């Protein structure tokens, strides 16, 4: 273990040959790529050529902790999983909080690279610098709760941290998730299906060596500062009080709450599924992640008419909207149960909800009928059907087998105009934020390398004129004026460009967005101080943001090599139509030409002429090895 927040060791596992090796990496590697997606992309760019089958043995998965993860830096628990996505065919990348990433570092590894395909179900057991491939026959077919309990029992240690797939991943549902500790998820892009394709059920980790910081007292002092500041910081307190479900009410009021497969932006039963009701009637308290004082995770009482199991956690905003309002369901018992089922079966709640709401709209449009859906029409508002179809998708039963391919593929196969009803970018179903009320989110949907993603950059309202929250973060970045949420001028592109670098840096460090500026308590100068104290580097915001920019260029280059280009950086037609409800009803808030020009301007800012990083930009970012390939 090096005294710089990282281990300098990457575990390399070939499941075809059952070989386990360790690759040593020096400080320069981590200073260039950070951790998380920087490490993942470094391997993917070398080892996953164009034409690789995402569900074949040639795909490579990288599980990488953040650079600071495992140190006592507060709210930095994240790990990233990267692989070629079976949902989009582009870069697959998903972050998760919890404890798994920290445990991996304490076990002596910064990342695990997984190649090939095991002949039969296996899991990987990593303990204190050693690793072995073990038989998983006993847990194959089990849900995540059963798997977690069985492997902890088999390993004889309840403190083992396990990241795993459920039946959805085993059956290669193209939006299967990876689940750690039952309540933390690498949710998007179908990376659970890639694990399933490799016959890899889980990675269990136990580490007992504290991750050494260069300046442990410095890290601890900063952690104490954050813990105290979080008690007073209004954004951190709001996250603790109500978490992301607070967004249901504000999205609904603004006309931006996806409802009935995006056919409306306000839901008449929004109060029934909102954060106030969830907090007042369903929660037992809050949960947290490794070394985080904010405690924003929703912990459920459980029970109720549907017998919800509390151990699978409470729903976040995305889940409530995707499986609630967007399916026309205004019943929190159903939403909590649907959340449990997705987490138990290992499927992304956004894409699962989107697949079901898409099918509901196909029913409403007469494209499918009762004969397609087991004799009962799949109608908006039918909560029982939502619960049933989650299981059918995970088991690939009947029409569920088609939905398990993702909404875009399902629509293509159905024909009859069904494609009009899929709201996706690059094949990934859109998160629950309507770009018509925040245009910068539309830009990030189009430009994110993983398809529609709401974390590629920060959201517009934070940087609206007069908002002191965005101003405090914007100033050190050079953003000195606020930009209106609906704006699509170069000022907005600049805000999106800078914060897309910041967000990728956060992923590389393992930072949770809900712990750091602009959304929460830790400001940028403290973030830099944490990096300095953990690593011992004489570094600054400029060098750190370059890590984010480097990762974005690597992701872009990876996608270009997989055949993606400017034609894929588009928004669904739905978002260019007038808003159907809310205070901006009837106004088309995204202009097609303005949007196209904004995307073009992002390329210009990034040094991606024609949508691809230029040779000069690659060299400027220290990626000459990519320019030479």
């Amino acid at each position, binding site marked *: 273990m090096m005294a710089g927040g990282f281990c300098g060791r990457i575990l390399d596992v070939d499941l075809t040959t059952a070989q386990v090796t360790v690759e040593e990496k020096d400080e320069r590697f981590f200073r260039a790529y950070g951790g998380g997606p920087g490490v993942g992309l470094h391997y993917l760019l070398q080892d996953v050529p164009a034409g690789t089958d995402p569900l074949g043995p040639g795909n490579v998965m990288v599980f990488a902790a953040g650079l600071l993860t495992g140190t006592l830096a507060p709210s930095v628990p994240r790990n990233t999983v990267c692989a070629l996505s079976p949902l989009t065919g582009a870069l697959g990348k998903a972050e998760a909080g919890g404890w798994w990433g920290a445990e991996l570092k304490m076990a002596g590894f910064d990342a695990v690279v997984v190649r090939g395909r095991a002949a039969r179900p296996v899991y990987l057991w990593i303990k204190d610098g050693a690793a072995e491939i073990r038989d998983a026959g006993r847990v194959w077919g089990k849900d995540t709760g059963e798997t977690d309990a069985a492997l902890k029992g088999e390993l004889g240690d309840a403190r083992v941290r396990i990241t795993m797939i459920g039946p959805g991943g085993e059956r290669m549902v193209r939006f299967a998730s990876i689940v750690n500790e039952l309540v933390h998820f690498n949710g998007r892009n179908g990376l659970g299906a890639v694990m399933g394709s490799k016959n890899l059920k889980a990675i269990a980790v136990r580490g007992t060596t504290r991750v050494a910081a260069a300046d442990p007292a410095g890290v601890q002092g900063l952690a104490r500062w954050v813990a105290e500041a979080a008690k007073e910081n*209004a*954004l951190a*307190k*709001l*996250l603790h*009080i*109500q*978490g*992301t479900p*607070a*967004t249901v*009410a*504000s*999205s609904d*009021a*603004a006309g931006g709450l996806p409802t009935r497969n995006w056919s409306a932006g306000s839901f008449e039963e929004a109060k029934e599924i*909102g*954060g*106030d009701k969830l*907090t007042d009637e369903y929660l037992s308290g809050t949960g947290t992640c490794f070394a985080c004082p904010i405690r924003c995770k929703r912990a459920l009482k459980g029970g109720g008419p549907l017998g919800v199991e509390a151990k699978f956690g409470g729903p*976040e*905003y*995305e889940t409530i*909207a995707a499986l609630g309002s967007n399916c026309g369901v205004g019943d929190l018992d159903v939403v909590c149960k649907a959340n449990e089922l997705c987490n138990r079966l290992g499927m992304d709640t956004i894409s699962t909800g989107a697949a079901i709401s898409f099918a509901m709209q196909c029913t409403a449009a007469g494209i499918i009928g009762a004969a397609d859906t087991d004799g009962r029409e799949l109608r908006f508002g039918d909560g029982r059907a939502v619960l049933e179809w989650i299981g059918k998708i995970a088991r690939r039963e009947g029409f569920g087998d088609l939905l398990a391919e993702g909404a875009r593929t399902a629509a293509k196969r159905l024909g009859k105009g069904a494609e009009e009803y899929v709201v996706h970018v690059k094949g990934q179903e859109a*998160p*629950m*934020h309507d770009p018509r009320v925040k245009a910068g989110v539309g830009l990030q949907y189009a430009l994110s390398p993983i398809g529609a993603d*709401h*974390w590629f950059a920060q*959201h517009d*309202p*934070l940087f609206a004129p*007069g*908002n*002191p*929250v*965005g101003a405090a973060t914007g100033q050190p970045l050079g953003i000195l004026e606020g930009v209106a949420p609906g704006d699509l001028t170069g000022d907005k592109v600049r805000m999106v460009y800078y914060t897309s670098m910041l967000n990728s840096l956060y992923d590389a460090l393992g930072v949770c*967005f*809900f712990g750091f500026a602009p*959304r929460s308590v830790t400001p940028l100068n403290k973030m830099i101080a944490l990096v300095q104290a953990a690593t011992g580097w004489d570094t600054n915001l400029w060098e750190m943001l370059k890590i984010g920019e480097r990762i974005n260029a690597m992701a872009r280059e990876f996608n270009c090599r997989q055949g993606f280009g400017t034609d894929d950086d588009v928004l669904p037609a739905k978002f260019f139509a007038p808003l159907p409800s809310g*205070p*901006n009803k009837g106004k088309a808030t995204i202009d097609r030409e303005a949007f196209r020009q904004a995307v073009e301007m992002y390329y210009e800012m990034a040094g991606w002429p024609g949508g691809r990083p230029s040779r000069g930009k690659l060299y400027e970012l220290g990626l000459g090895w990519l320019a030479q390939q």
Partner: protein
Amino acid sequence: MKVSVVLVGGLRELAGLDGKTVLLDDPSLRKVADLLPLLRLPPGIVGLAMSGGRQLDWEDDLAEGMAVTLYSLVGGG
């Protein structure tokens, strides 16, 4: 001026109030932005203000008897 305010999305707890609706009766009330200090809510924490289905700007005038709903700035995840 008397204005009733509904606090949504954790703002009630943040303001340290028991009920979701609070009646403000204060001669200093003129603009929507004036509501925040009376409720001890820091600027930037309220993402949206609405009244009668209309989105309000911070500089909009308040009117006697107006009902305003304030929504927190959180954002999904």
